[in-house]
């Protein structure tokens, strides 16, 4: 059996199975992961964009409200009314009731003089002239002004809101200071996660609110410069050795840019988790496929090997029976050819015997010798006759048939075939036939082949001066079986060999003397006849084969 061939086949099956199952598996896994990843990333980007726009709207709303409040106050009251600091205080209190963000309120005439002031820094600010200040020029030019955040002498971040009012031919300014903490609060709400950050920068890339990680207020942020941003943008930027998602959106008024920074890794944690799960499932799938393909290929090749073995043994059986049929034909031919001369010898001897009865020869002195010779010739002819008849019967039996068979007769014939060989080697064959065993319907020639095989093996096994006991009888159990026991006192068969003894091609003889098929063929013949064959052996004690033939 060429096991190497089957190993190669097995490897091929495994390789092909793995290839065709793993390629789609990986393709599917990778595609799904990529699609999922892309959609998840776009979802995160969309969320960041929406957060940025939302915060921007809140900030813009805040500024619009403050400006409109200031404008309302300025338009509804005259300069004359607001010059009065008591009145201004009343107005300021009303404003502060609506928004705590106001720190102070001042009225400045067109020459930059602080004509009225309400707030905590009355002494310092009352006498200040703003004619040279940047914001004064800006508000006089634009009508509305929002400053960047600054510390000023107050040492706390704040910003200025100012509106101009044209009253007749004079122009005056209502100016409020706003605590930038309020803005910071609004911006801080966009600081998501552990690594998230959000802040405002002015057009010079100076922080207008305190950031969490990117620098303190009025510093330059450590992030890239987004001060020139136009429209809302979301982009992934690698900086400081890490990937971050930046959502930037410019405010219309003041001209600041809201920057929201998110840690990509943190945001993508569910995706990483999904990737981990996918990898785990993929690994499990691969393992299953590998195990399944190995198991499948193993069972397939085992089955193939079994079929091959069976086929080989069937082929051999066929060849063997072909050989036996040819042998039978030859035996019959030889027997026939010998029968003719035997017949002549027999007749000649008979004629001589007839002649001896005539008187002249009866008186001869060697008469007795002649008579003895003729008797011996006749006896030998009879002996030959029994041999040739047996050969003829043997030849006839090579065709498969079903007959009423006397097992004892078949067995004794087989034994007589082999007795000669046994005799030459001083082997004793003891027979013990039970007389009244029932006849069985079976194929006598096949049965004879089995007897021949087993007894022949026994003769080989026992060696010179061995003993073989052949016994027949009715099986103790049901009585529906006959048994034929062939026991030898040879060296016996070791246990591990005993298991393989009926396997095709198993032989302990040298390759030239045996095909290793005898017992295998015997086994399959007995199965075909509905019987069975068993073996018992003990090393050093001999071997006993028992054949069971069913009685129908």
């Amino acid at each position, binding site marked *: 059996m060429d096991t190497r061939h089957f190993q190669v086949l097995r490897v091929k099956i495994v390789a092909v199975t793995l290839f065709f199952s793993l390629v789609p598996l990986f393709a599917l896994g990778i595609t799904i992961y990529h699609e999922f990843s892309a959609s998840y990333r776009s979802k995160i980007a969309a969320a960041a964009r929406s957060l940025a726009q939302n915060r921007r709207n809140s900030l813009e709303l805040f500024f619009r409200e403050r400006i409109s409040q200031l404008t309302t106050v300025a338009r509804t009251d005259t300069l004359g009314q607001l010059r009065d600091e008591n009145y201004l205080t009343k107005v300021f209190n009303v404003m502060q009731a609506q928004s705590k963000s106001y720190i102070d309120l001042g009225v400045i005439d067109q020459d930059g003089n602080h004509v009225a002031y309400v707030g905590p820094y009355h002494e310092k600010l009352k006498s200040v002239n703003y004619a040279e200040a940047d914001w004064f020029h800006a508000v006089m030019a634009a009508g509305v002004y929002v400053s960047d955040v600054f510390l000023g002498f107050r040492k706390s971040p704040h910003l200025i809101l100012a509106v101009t009012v044209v009253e007749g031919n004079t122009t005056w300014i209502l100016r409020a200071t706003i605590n930038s903490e309020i803005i910071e609060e609004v911006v801080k709400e966009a600081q998501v996660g552990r690594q998230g950050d959000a802040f405002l920068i002015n057009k010079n890339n100076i922080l207008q609110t305190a950031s969490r990680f990117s620098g303190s207020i009025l510093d330059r942020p450590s992030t890239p410069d987004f001060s020139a941003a136009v429209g809302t943008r979301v982009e992934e930027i690698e900086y400081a050795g890490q990937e971050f998602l930046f959502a930037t959106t410019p405010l219309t008024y003041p001209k600041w840019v809201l920057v929201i920074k998110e840690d990509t890794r943190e945001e993508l944690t569910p995706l990483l988790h999904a990737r981990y799960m996918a990898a785990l499932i993929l690994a499990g799938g691969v393992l299953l496929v590998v195990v399944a393909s190995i198991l499948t290929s193993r069972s397939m090749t085992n089955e193939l090997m079994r079929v091959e073995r069976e086929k080989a043994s069937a082929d051999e059986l066929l060849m063997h029976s072909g050989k036996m049929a040819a042998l039978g034909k030859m035996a019959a031919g030889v027997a026939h050819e010998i*029968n003719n001369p035997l*017949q002549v010898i027999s*007749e000649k001897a*008979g004629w001589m015997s*007839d002649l001896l009865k005539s008187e002249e020869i009866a008186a001869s002195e060697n008469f007795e010798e002649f008579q003895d010779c003729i008797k011996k010739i006749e006896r030998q002819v009879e002996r030959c006759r029994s041999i040739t008849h047996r050969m003829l019967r043997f030849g006839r039996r090579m065709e498969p048939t079903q007959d009423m068979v006397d097992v004892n007769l078949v067995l004794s014939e087989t034994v007589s075939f082999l007795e000669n060989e046994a005799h030459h080697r001083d082997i004793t064959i003891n027979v013990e036939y039970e007389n009244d065993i029932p006849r069985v319907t079976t194929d006598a020639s096949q049965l004879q082949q089995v007897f021949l095989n087993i007894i022949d093996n026994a003769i080989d096994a026992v060696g010179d001066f061995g003993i073989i006991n052949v016994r027949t009888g009715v099986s103790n159990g049901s009585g529906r079986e006959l048994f034929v026991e062939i026991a030898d006192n040879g060296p016996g068969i070791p246990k591990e060999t005993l298991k393989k003894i009926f396997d095709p091609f198993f032989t302990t003889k040298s390759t030239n003397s045996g095909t290793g098929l005898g017992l295998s063929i015997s086994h399959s013949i007995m199965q075909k006849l509905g019987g069975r064959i068993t073996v018992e052996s003990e090393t050093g004690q001999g071997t006993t084969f028992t054949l069971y033939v069913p009685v129908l």
Partner: protein
Amino acid sequence: MENLRVLVVDDEEDFVETIVKRLKGRGLQAAGVTSGQDALDLLETRDFDVIVLDVKMPRMDGIQTLKEIKKRKPLTEVIMLTGHGSVDSGIKGLQLGAYNYIMKPVPLDELLKQVGQAYERKLIEEGRLGSTGTVSE
């Protein structure tokens, strides 16, 4: 057994020669030929009660010869002598009207017994047919 006319047909000349001598020695009117054709030729001129016929002969074999004999002399009994183990040829002979078949080598006593029985059957057949008168020889 006196006056029993036996013809032995076998291609083995030594066998035919000896057995004829022995049969004659036992008082039978025996004759022998060594081929089927010779047997048929002899039957033209002589009648026999029993013919011992070898199955396997060159040219014309026993079965063919049997057919011819039965065609010409239906009442003559034929014993097939077969050296061949095949029961088939024996059975075929029986189907074609042979009295029996015997396996070679056959002891003379056995042969004589069979010949005697065949002759008895012939006599019975002849008696039966003779009384009805359907066939005359």
